[in-house]
């Protein structure tokens, strides 16, 4: 078992003929993901790493039964790529693209809420269900199947945690990178709900950072709705106020969104919070 992606994932890669799209298509195919189609307007009929290319997502869905998409198109085109995928009937859209303007994402979110479709990202590494499907850019060689669900706002920091767990022989059900933008498609709460309902997931690791209030909301949700053990880490204790720390969403604004406050609230909700990434593996191992 797992969440969001698995053996039944039939993936269409939006922007498959681009540099990033082509590179990661190869990695996803290698990993065993069912990459059934790619899109690139005007290039329908071509193939990339053996994957057939269509002019539009609706064509791809029609011919291949794709049910999930991953977006590698530039920021200016990413919102339209989401609209196109959802309108074509795709129920899970994963947007890797970094640099999508916030006001575009506000419209995308309103659209998704109307349509009842799910977006993961943007500005995220995607997700991986070890041994079944890899959708995005998470390295496939640092994960193994197992009982831990991971949800995180960052990329390489999450790889650290996956790697640390894997080195200890602790595998994962699914790892989800929800992205570092101020407004994104999927929240911590969305993933916590899915992990709580997933029979194979025995505990959850949550990796947050400064900025916004997603961790605070997650804490309230965990307190009220999550029975499985949750271990967290929050990056940015040393980050100064008012500065964007790389991620567009990682900023302490008006004194709100500090790591200290997030850690306090998570602890109050019964979450174990690690001091450093490697300690996460200790805490997870202790509650197995």
């Amino acid at each position, binding site marked *: 078992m797992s969440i969001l992606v698995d053996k039944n994932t039939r993936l269409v890669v939006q922007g498959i003929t681009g540099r990033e799209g082509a590179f990661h298509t190869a990695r996803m195919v290698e990993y065993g993901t069912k990459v059934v189609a790619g899109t690139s307007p005007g290039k329908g009929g071509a193939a990339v790493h053996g994957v057939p290319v269509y002019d539009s997502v609706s064509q791809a869905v029609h011919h291949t039964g794709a049910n999930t998409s991953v977006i590698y198109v530039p*920021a*200016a085109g990413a919102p339209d790529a989401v609209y196109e995928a959802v309108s074509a009937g795709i129920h899970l859209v994963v947007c890797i693209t970094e*640099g*999508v*303007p*916030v*006001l575009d*994402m*506000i*419209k995308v*979110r*309103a659209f998704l809420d109307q349509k009842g479709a799910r977006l993961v990202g943007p500005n995220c590494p995607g997700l991986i269900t070890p041994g079944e499907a890899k959708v995005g*850019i*998470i*390295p496939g060689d*640092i994960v193994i199947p197992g009982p831990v669900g991971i949800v*995180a*706002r*960052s*990329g*390489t*920091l*999450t*790889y*650290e945690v996956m*790697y640390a767990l894997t080195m200890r022989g602790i595998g994962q059900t699914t790892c989800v990178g929800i992205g*570092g933008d*101020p*407004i994104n498609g999927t929240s911590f709460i969305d993933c916590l709900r899915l992990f709580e309902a997933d029979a194979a997931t025995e505990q959850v690791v949550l*990796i947050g*950072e*400064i900025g*916004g*209030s997603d961790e605070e*909301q997650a804490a309230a949700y965990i307190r009220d709705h999550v029975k499985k053990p949750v271990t967290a*880490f929050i*990056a*940015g*204790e*040393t*980050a*100064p106020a008012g*500065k*964007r*720390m*790389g*991620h*567009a*969403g*990682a900023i302490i604004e*008006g*004194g709100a969104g500090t*790591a200290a406050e997030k850690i306090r609230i998570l602890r109050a909700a019964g979450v174990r919070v690690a*001091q*450093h*990434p*490697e300690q996460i593996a200790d805490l997870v191992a202790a509650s197995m």
Partner: protein
Amino acid sequence: MKLHEYQSKRIFAQYGIPIPRGEIATTPSEARRIAEELGGRVVIKSQVLVGGRGKAGGIKLAKDADEAEGLAGRILGMDIKGLKVETVLVDAAADIRQEIYLGVVIDRAACRPVLMASAEGGVEIEEVARTNPSAIVKTHVDPFLGLRSYQTRDVAIGIGLARCLWKAFHKIAAGLVECFVGSDASLAEINPLVITGDDGLLAVDGKMLIDDNSLFRHPDLAALRDASEGTWAEAEARRFELSYVDMDGEIGCMVNGAGLAMTTMDLIKLSGGAPANFLDIGGGAKSDKVAAALRIILADARVKAVLLNIFGGITRCDEVAAGILEALQQVETNVPMVARLVGTNADEGRSMLADANLLTATTLLEAAQMAVAAAHGAS
């Protein structure tokens, strides 16, 4: 991206928001000429991208052109929080009866812009939020419908605005929201919005932050960027598309990934040191970018040690190592360096660096501890 007050107000004016008559000057004599043209009392306002200009003496009222020239002379060249004043705005002084606050920001939790107003203008909204949160009236802006007149009416009622001002207030609030959306802002703020003696409304001070991610579609706004925004290192990093923030510690760091970069800083602190910077080289960085990053770090004289933390995925560890070697050929330095490379081509990278006499670590915590020890040994 931050805009100067005068830039923000000029954009406001394009959206129909009334602003004081005024112009910018870079010399005292220019300030005199502007003051003469405006006539009457003027305000001389330093244009620097930091808050607290008033308290720092960067905003002064002049009763005539003579005084304007004198005050401009004192303010131009002044140092405000580390920034030199190059430009002043000379505005006609307003007849202020009351100051209110009006601003638009993104409400991340609600996923939409929010208009905020308060009868307590002229002070920072965060201050009001702390001391008297009920004084702030908010209304969310529907991303598709925009701000409707009933919303500004409710806000006007909420801050106790006289009925005769509702129409003008709606025009300004609607203009500010349009300005916010049209400029892809993350903040558009009028503080204070002044009620004048003759029952007018006037945007006396203005502030805008633009979403950097949107600049590709706003070449006009991108051109307004003050190259001196932030420190030298921050400006230099921007030039190489590196994500960099100045800190005041002694351990420079270079990391791939924003979350991991923050974590590296946190672990330096946990190990008893202090980070000198945040620096994310991004995914798949090539050697030239790595070299630029290292040059920027080493240009900071306070740096006593450097910590390189790379989790190779798309980023190849050998590419990063090559960049470091390239930089070390260009910059002479005795600063000790600790490298921690994991993942794609980590072995190749590590052996390249070992030849260059760098310390190498296995875990992140270990690397942080080694960097702190090296910095303290070096100092």
